């Protein structure tokens, strides 16, 4: 097995994402995502050099099938989770719509408006990021979210 090329050391850089959120709408989003995510598609463990393999074998065999990116989604109170392909969605709105349909509820996220009198009908959507912190969905640009998200959680209000 060969040795890694030097490109692997650049994965850690927070400036790894070459595109800005305004320009991306004009480009082929899936290509950008594939480029930006081809390594981080396996957050967080590629950044943390896992699994323990000599990188050349990993890089050669990883036939970028990154047209999908499944994350686990749990709803509070239901032990069995679901899986969702984030790359099948174009934006937060798209994602929220899918989740609301999947879990039969109203989802609160950064840009949602809630009817405070009926809070029991709402669930808050959060995600676990690479550092293990739980954050509200919707604060950062969609592409940035995709690179940071590990899994989703839908909690009661």
């Amino acid at each position, binding site marked *: 097995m060969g040795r890694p090329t030097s490109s692997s050391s650049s994965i850690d850089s927070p400036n790894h994402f070459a595109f800005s959120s305004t320009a991306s709408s004009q480009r082929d989003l899936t290509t950008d995502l594939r480029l930006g995510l081809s390594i981080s598609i396996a957050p967080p463990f590629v950044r943390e*050099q896992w699994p323990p393999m000599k990188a050349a074998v990993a890089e050669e065999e990883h036939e970028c099938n990154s047209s999908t990116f499944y994350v686990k989604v749990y709803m509070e109170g239901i032990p069995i989770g679901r899986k969702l392909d984030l790359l099948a969605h174009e934006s937060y709105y798209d994602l929220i719509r899918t989740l609301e349909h999947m879990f039969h509820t109203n989802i609160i996220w950064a840009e949602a408006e809630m009817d405070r009198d009926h809070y029991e009908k709402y669930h808050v959507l959060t995600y676990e990021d690479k550092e293990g912190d739980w954050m509200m969905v919707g604060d950062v640009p969609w592409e940035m979210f995709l690179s940071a998200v590990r899994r989703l959680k839908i909690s009661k209000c």
Partner: protein
Amino acid sequence: MQKEMAYSFPDEVLKHVFSFIQSDKDRNAVSLVCKSWYEIERWCRRKVFIGNCYAVSPRMVIRRFPEVRSIELKGKPHFADFNLVPDGWGGYVLQWIAEMAGAYPWLGEIRLKRMVVTDESLELIAKSFKNFKVLVLFSCEGFSTDGLAAIAASCKNLRELDLRESEVDDLSGHWLAQFPETCTSLVSLNISCLGSDEVSFSALERLVDRCPNLRSLQLNRAVTLDKIANILRRAPQLVDFGTGNYAAELQPDVFSNLAGAFSSCKELKSLSGFWDVVPAYLPALYSICPRLTSLNLSYATIQSPDLIKLVSHCPRLQRLLVLDYVEDSGLEELASSCKDLQELRVFPSDPFGVEPNVSLTEQGLVAVSLGCPKLQSVLYFCRRMSNAALVTIAQNCPNLTRFRLCIIEPKTPDYLTLDPLDAGFGAIVEHCKDLRRLSLSGLLTDHVFEYIGTYGKKLEMLSVAFAGDSDLGLHHVLSGCESLRKLEIRDCPFGDKALLANAAKLETMRSLWMSSCAVSFGACKLLGQKMPKLNVEVIDETEPPDSRPESYPVDKLYIYKSVAGPRFDMPPFVWSMDEAVKILH
């Protein structure tokens, strides 16, 4: 009278007796018997192995062993293979070569692993050692084809040039043509790591032609399938062969030429290479398969049915390296066909995929453990495991010496019971009494370390990641594993207590690596202060460790025993905790 006779052997007799003692351990024991044996032994030691190039200085080695002909050096810690050691960390061989150039004019063999080798070093080797025979650069970096050209041109009696898994700067493919026409001595040539333009094929053919003793040849990926037959016909005496690219459009004449060339190699026992395999060309190997003892298919992206067919032709197989495309079904076939199997390595084809892409589970390994009674060495990547399977494997294979399991998702529990895998690994260390090397994975508590400390008495190397609950885990290992030489840990909640309580243990080991754990800067300083025989090095690429409170954990820590004192080639992101160095600053 009796006493005098015991000491009356002339030195030459003792020297002759010692010449039959090859192992380093035995040689070291001999040198401890008495002063005169120490003296005689040191003058006739010809081979030196240095497991950590910073444990001793070149000058010290030369002073003690003035007549060395063969040296082996290792540089970076093992976790450098997984990019955990930053570039520029160290492991430079130049100073060693420079000092040995003066002291060992008859040095014939240099074997290096994980070291930084520059063209300057290679040129110095070429210039300095008139009887140079063997150069092995295993997982090395820092040199180019220019350095190789110097070696080829100057080393008139070169027997072995092995560049396995090294990173070489390709500047020109013509270095191979630098081997003079008079060079006919090659026995082993491994250029499998070279890129596309680094080999002049015609020079290679001519070289192979004029080296009748060539036993081992590993080509690089750029060599196409149609060229294999030419090479093999020039070297039918090969024992070990690595193909290049094994892909081409299926053409009957190319196929029959290839099959004929393989069948003419009556000594061929070991195959590797196989980049980009076209399955239709695999039957060209069938004539030699019955003799094969070693098969490395770790680059071969072929699916299970083709793998099964191939493996079923190799009843004498002792060693198999393969991708997880082999699947459980392929491993079941392996278990029934290859009763001599001693070593199995299964690598993941899609290590970063969230979903499994192949049907490879713990069942495959269980099947092999059941069917292959001689199994000794395992490296297995998979996505699920159970305690029950590990217990079965342990009971089936009590002769395991190396067991490395990597469950791809960290902290994965037993998929049947959701328990930690403590009991399973416990069974491995309990039943496999000769286990020398172990790598853990999955969900593990401090209990697994209790088992390891209790039963792992012959364990020499342990790799741990994302495991344990507290310092107690580390304490079990350091206090219980009597034979421990190398311990490497990442992402575990181990802190100061176990390390400080077992500081003396560290002097009996080669090295300890801890990264993303909870060892404080203060503890590192204390260790550096109290343990002069240890080099305690803190690695931090973001900021100096003393810019933060002492209680703050260090990013990476590498501790190793050394008689050379702190090293002087540390890059800015490595800090020595040695008091002497700090005073100088």
